[in-house]
């Protein structure tokens, strides 16, 4: 992973924000990780270090939590975040084909975006479902995915 250059001021501000928002307690680990991810779109390593200092949990454990929960990520977001559900119910509605089509769609539009597979998005009754930049698309088709992704903006 590339080392991110973060200014001293940014670190200080981040530290202040943490102090204002979260108590110094282990129980704040997951809520504060959620908050960092909402702020930055991912969990930057420098932020995890400061977080560890503030809530008083060893950095190794903060890293452990950050890497075990599927909702949390250490990777900076791509231009588009796309996930196709390939759970049992979505498979019944042709999600495997849709996955291929969605991947092709991005290739055709010249976008280097990793289209992820997820095991379940818990909306099985409107399968197949695709998650595009945080928006859930039910009864998804190639056309709907095409419509939802703003290829111009990328």
């Amino acid at each position: 992973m590339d080392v991110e250059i973060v200014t001293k001021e940014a670190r200080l501000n981040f530290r202040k924000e943490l102090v204002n928002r979260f108590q110094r307690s282990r129980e704040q680990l997951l809520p504060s990780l959620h908050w960092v991810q909402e702020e930055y779109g991912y969990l930057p390593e420098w932020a995890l270090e400061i977080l560890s200092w503030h809530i008083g949990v060893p950095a190794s454990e903060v890293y452990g939590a950050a890497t075990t929960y599927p909702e949390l990520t250490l990777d900076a977001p791509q231009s588009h975040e796309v996930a196709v559900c390939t759970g049992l119910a979505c498979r019944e509605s042709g999600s495997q084909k849709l996955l291929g089509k969605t991947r092709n769609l991005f290739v055709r539009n010249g976008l280097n975006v990793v289209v992820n597979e997820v095991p379940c998005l818990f909306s099985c009754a409107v399968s197949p479902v695709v998650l595009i930049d945080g928006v859930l698309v039910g009864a998804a088709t190639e056309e709907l995915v095409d419509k939802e992704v703003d290829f111009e903006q990328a």
Partner: protein
Amino acid sequence: MSKHNSLEKLAEINSHVQVHDQRDRIVVQVGQCSASIGAYDELESIKTKYSETHRIEVAGCSGACFSGPRVTGLDSSDIFSNDQDFFKSQTRYVLQGIGEIAWDDIRQYISIGGFEGLAKALSVTSEEVIDIVSDSGLRGRGGAYFPVALKWKSASSQRSAPVVLVNAEEGEPGLFKDRHLMEGMPFRVIEGALIAAYASKSEEILIYVNAEAELAYSRLNISLQKCQDLGLVGKNVLGTDFSVSIRLFRGAGGYVCGEESTLINTLEGRRREPRLRPPFPTESGFRSLPTVVNNVETLCNVPLVLSSGPEKFRSNGTSDAPGTKLLSLSGNMPYRGLAEVPFGITLLSVLQDVGGIKDLNDLSGVAVGGPSSGILPTHLLDLEILPGIIDGKNVMLGAGGVVALSKNTDPYEATIHLSKYNAAESCGKCTPCREGAPKIVSMLESIRNSSDRSDEFKRLEMLATTVNAASLCGLGQAAGNPFLSYLNHFSQEQGD
């Protein structure tokens, strides 16, 4: 303050929140699933057309996801012709009112009997509440079906005051019932939790909501504030001596977090791993305090048991398993969605009458109970829906996920899929699950195309049985089930 004025206090709140908008209602059902198929667009278009003449309200979804987004109150789009079967064959007990009343309107909730259960509970002692729930025979609906009253009793008899933890993690593939309840009737979830807290002599409630269920989280949050404003949560609930606080907590995904001791670890900011038991959470759980962990569906039953009595609750289901169960129907069937049926009904009648399946030959099997369970062949569908194991072997009802597999789906591939899920979700704490679950997958994959699988199947059976027997928590103890149920139900048919 006396205990006996809780009912009067409720009536006072009710008169306080009355509104006098007499215009006709249009109800748009918006939930996370229906939003994904255009419910917000529908809402907008209805607002532009009717906001002058009608009262437009947003409700949760009634469960008929196959015909969503649904709008009621307008003559034309009131009822889809095929809806009738879907609703007619159900027994709506926990789901009553969902999709009909606005999710954020406490007045409407009170008008259908909301908070009556709480008021009744507060007018008697904690022990009497436990007795009433014990009479109803209500059991946990999260998959383990532990008697609710027993759990409360055990926690309330500890030395320190317990914590009530609402398990809304619902991270099992194929399940969407708790989310529907939280989106459609957040007040009922809160009411149930309040009664649980009163019965188990707790003053603190934590609600742990699945990370994916964002809409449910925000609706619970708003409803909670409304309850606090009206004195239903906080100091001296409904003018009684009972005080309680509620906090919401967002999860971050992971099937294993639905396991109660893992849930507690997550809340405490520890590793996402199960704990050794005993001690059980009712003795020592969150912050080493006695902890009552109840599922959302369980808690939604509680207010109804109190308001309409345990006899009404027992009128559904069987004598051993009274009440109803929510089933999340999906896969290859016409009417997919959330259905409520009494215990004791056969799977076949659910699939045919509610799910609308006409020809069983279109199916290769039905996956019941998610990845901790297995797949039933079509000739075994006349089994009854009951708590626990339903085929006498490895297929469990679990939390009530039902996925119909089309005849084009090979049950073997579906078995691999389920096993893969278990392997991926294993937290890695105990060896049998961490090493065994992936091994089951790799063995299944390696013999996918071989003609004689009997030797490998014997080894797999031993492995799966060992994983089940030696693992620490519910995930590992069921990780072998998809394969074992395949072995029981499908392997002979296919000549192995």
